[in-house]
């Protein structure tokens, strides 16, 4: 980094929302600098080490140093705020080059056309701030396709009534290998007149350039990939950006302020380097993609005379309408000793995937009103192979009492050697409300002395209603398969790894932070390309859409720089 160099683009963050911008602009010959709060973990740094991946805060900040504040309803129905350091309720995701895309499971699904016009299709829901998107599915489709090719998506297209329109007949990579249980799901669903279809994954089933195919390690989600098959922004995009010679990445660089020039334009980004020293970077265009919560936090922290309420926040909308993925989980157990030895052996086979999803419930009929309403998605997967986490979940018996002694040991042995748990995850819209937003904590500060994000996590009861209907249908499939101990848990607690909103895009500068190009209404050279732009989240995981939108915005920025 040359002193006084002015870059074409400065990108804050390096995950799924940042990777496409970094890749496209570097490839187009523009000078790009990336400021990433976390370290650079190389592929060789990753192993299937549960201690590093989930037992200690290695891929996420230590909550002593970087807490957040969660505001939740207490027993009296009042909002109470607690530091995550006090509660241990961690809202961080992967903080490193490539962000949480390094650790995703890569369950990939496109939004559907209806997700872009939820308000005009289904109407208002009291207490929810539903809004149509300022773009359509057709605007994003070419970029979904681009993600399939560049990031790498494997799967098989099977037509169904809610299928998202495609410009290509099938995925560029064939489906990953499957466990026998996938065919059992198909059969059980078919008997219930439900269509079970293959689930696409952002995982390579064959080699792509320097990246090797999946080797079925049995440890995918929460772990970094050792073959580079998983489509993280780091290996799928940033590696190629570095090869251009136009890109520089500074890891361990925590941006704390974006400075304007007095004329509604950003001039420089201030950051703490690895040694805690204050540094600056100047650029013509700034792209913020620090994941939804931290993006809003950075804008709110960047106050000055022009923007006394925070950058691009003179309308007070920054941080508002934060959304997560609503829904819940469920599952059931299959016992090896009830199966023929050959079937039991196939069921026990580690590594190969379940990869089944059901989209039939994307639109439902409200049982009370008889009106059509938006539904959701169900994905099936095995319980994670993480043994410590698996044992911890078995600490408590069905009455909520702690198991211990020889009784615990007998239970653990049977669970590990005779049970395979099939789980399902339900994804429904987390309706945006006035009770889900990001602000700054007036009291709690991080290790650099900056105010931490305060996140209010209220949910809308409609989300639980929709998820509950889908849970019952999902349980029927497990029952038809012969599973034991079938359960479902629908919760209003947000999944911390599926966050979006906070800097809504839209055509009305009074009600939104960004225009339809994801450019701040108030700051011409500021773009936001993580999930913050999303007014509604759809009923699938966000990552594919975040990648696709970032490619779309990259084209817009190229047009501005040309």
């Amino acid at each position, binding site marked *: *980094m040359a002193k006084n160099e002015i870059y074409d683009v400065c990108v804050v963050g390096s995950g799924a929302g940042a990777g496409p911008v970094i890749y496209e602009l570097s490839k187009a010959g523009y000078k790009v600098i990336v400021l990433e709060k*976390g*370290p*650079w*973990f190389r592929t*060789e*740094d*990753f*192993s*299937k*080490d*549960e*201690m*590093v991946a989930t*037992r*200690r*805060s*290695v891929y996420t900040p*230590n*909550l*002593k140093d970087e807490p957040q504040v969660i505001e939740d309803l207490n027993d009296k129905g009042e909002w109470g705020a607690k530091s995550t*350091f006090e*509660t*241990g309720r961690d809202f961080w995701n992967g903080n490193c080059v490539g962000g949480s895309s390094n650790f995703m499971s890569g369950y990939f699904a496109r939004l559907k056309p209806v997700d872009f016009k939820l308000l005009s299709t289904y109407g208002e829901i009291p207490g929810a701030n539903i809004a149509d998107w300022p773009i359509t599915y057709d605007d994003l489709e070419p970029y979904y396709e681009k993600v399939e090719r560049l990031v790498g998506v494997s799967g098989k297209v099977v037509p169904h009534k809610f299928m998202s329109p495609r410009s290509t007949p099938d995925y560029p990579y064939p489906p990953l290998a499957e466990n026998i249980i996938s065919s059992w799901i198909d059969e059980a669903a078919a008997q219930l007149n439900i269509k079970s279809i293959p689930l696409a994954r952002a995982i390579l089933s064959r080699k792509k350039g320097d990246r090797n195919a999946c*080797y079925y*390690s*049995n*440890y995918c989600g929460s772990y970094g990939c*050792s073959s580079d098959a998983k489509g993280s922004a780091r290996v799928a995009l940033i*590696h190629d950006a*570095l*090869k251009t*010679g136009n*890109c*520089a*990445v*500074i*890891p*361990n660089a925590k941006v704390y302020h974006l400075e304007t020039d007095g004329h509604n334009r950003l001039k420089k980004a201030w950051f703490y*380097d*690895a*040694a805690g020293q204050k540094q600056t970077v100047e650029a013509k265009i700034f792209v913020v993609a620090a994941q939804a919560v931290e993006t809003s936090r950075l804008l709110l922290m960047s106050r000055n005379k022009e923007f006394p309420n925070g950058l691009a926040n003179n309308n007070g909308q920054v941080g508002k309408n934060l959304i997560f993925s609503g829904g819940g989980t469920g599952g059931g157990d299959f016992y090896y000793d009830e199966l023929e030895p050959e079937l039991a052996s196939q069921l026990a086979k*580690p590594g190969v995937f379940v990869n089944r999803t059901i989209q039939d419930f994307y639109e439902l009929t409200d049982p009370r009103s008889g009106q059509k309403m938006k539904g959701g998605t169900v994905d099936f997967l095995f319980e994670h*192979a993480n*043994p*410590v986490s698996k*044992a*911890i979940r078995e*600490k408590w018996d069905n009455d909520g*009492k*702690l198991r*211990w*002694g*020889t009784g*615990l*040991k007998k239970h*653990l*042995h049977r669970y*590990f*050697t005779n049970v395979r748990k099939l789980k399902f995850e339900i994804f429904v819209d987390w309706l945006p409300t006035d009770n889900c937003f990001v602000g700054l904590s007036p009291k709690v500060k991080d290790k650099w002395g900056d105010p931490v994000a305060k996140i209010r996590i209220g949910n809308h009861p409609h989300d639980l209603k929709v998820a509950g209907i889908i849970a019952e249908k999902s349980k029927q499939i497990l029952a038809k398969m012969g599973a034991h101990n079938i359960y479902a848990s629908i919760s209003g607690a947000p999944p911390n790894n599926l966050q979006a909103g906070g800097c809504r895009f839209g055509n009305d500068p009074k009600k939104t932070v960004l225009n339809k190009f994801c450019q701040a209404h108030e700051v011409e050279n500021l773009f936001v390309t993580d999930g913050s732009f999303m007014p509604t989240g759809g009923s699938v995981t966000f990552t594919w859409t975040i990648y696709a939108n970032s490619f779309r915005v990259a084209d817009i920025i190229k047009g501005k720089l040309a």
Partner: protein
Amino acid sequence: MNKPELNRRHFIKGIGATAILWQIPLWQACKRPVPVFKGILPGTQQKILHTVLNHLFPETTESPGIEQLHTEFHINTYLTDPQIDPDEQKYIINGITWLDETSQELFKTNFLSLTYSQQIKILENILQTSWGEYWLSRLLTLTFESLLLDPVYGVNVDEAGWHWLHHQPGQPRPQSGITYPEILKRKKEHLIITGLDQL
């Protein structure tokens, strides 16, 4: 579960519950002398911890116990890890003291002097308190770590835990240089990366 406050309130609820009939585990049946692991805890506290862990996760003829798994070594590592919340570390240690106080209150003698069944009664009693349930739960979590983490951490010796539970580890396994806390050094690297050859 959220961690409870670091005190013993709501604790004493009597010892009315009858102890479950327990299969006497090997460590008790053999009446071996208690080997004292040398870590940061004073000897008596370490002996109490050892005894409690043996109750929680007793060695049997088919399964490894805390000595083979190096559970006390693992807990000592946890208690000295600067990355861990100091309150959590204190809680593990305070729990030992509170357990012994409970023994004094209920049986007028220290925990180590109690009979096997009296010790069980104490554990069942503290399980009815929020602090006791949380403390024993934390000890079990640390025991599970010693049972199932990679042996590179000095636990799960000879992969005894993995063999017992037929667990197949993922590949690649952690090696020197990328284990916790070595990998944390990446968080202090002062770099500007402009090419893949730097990685």
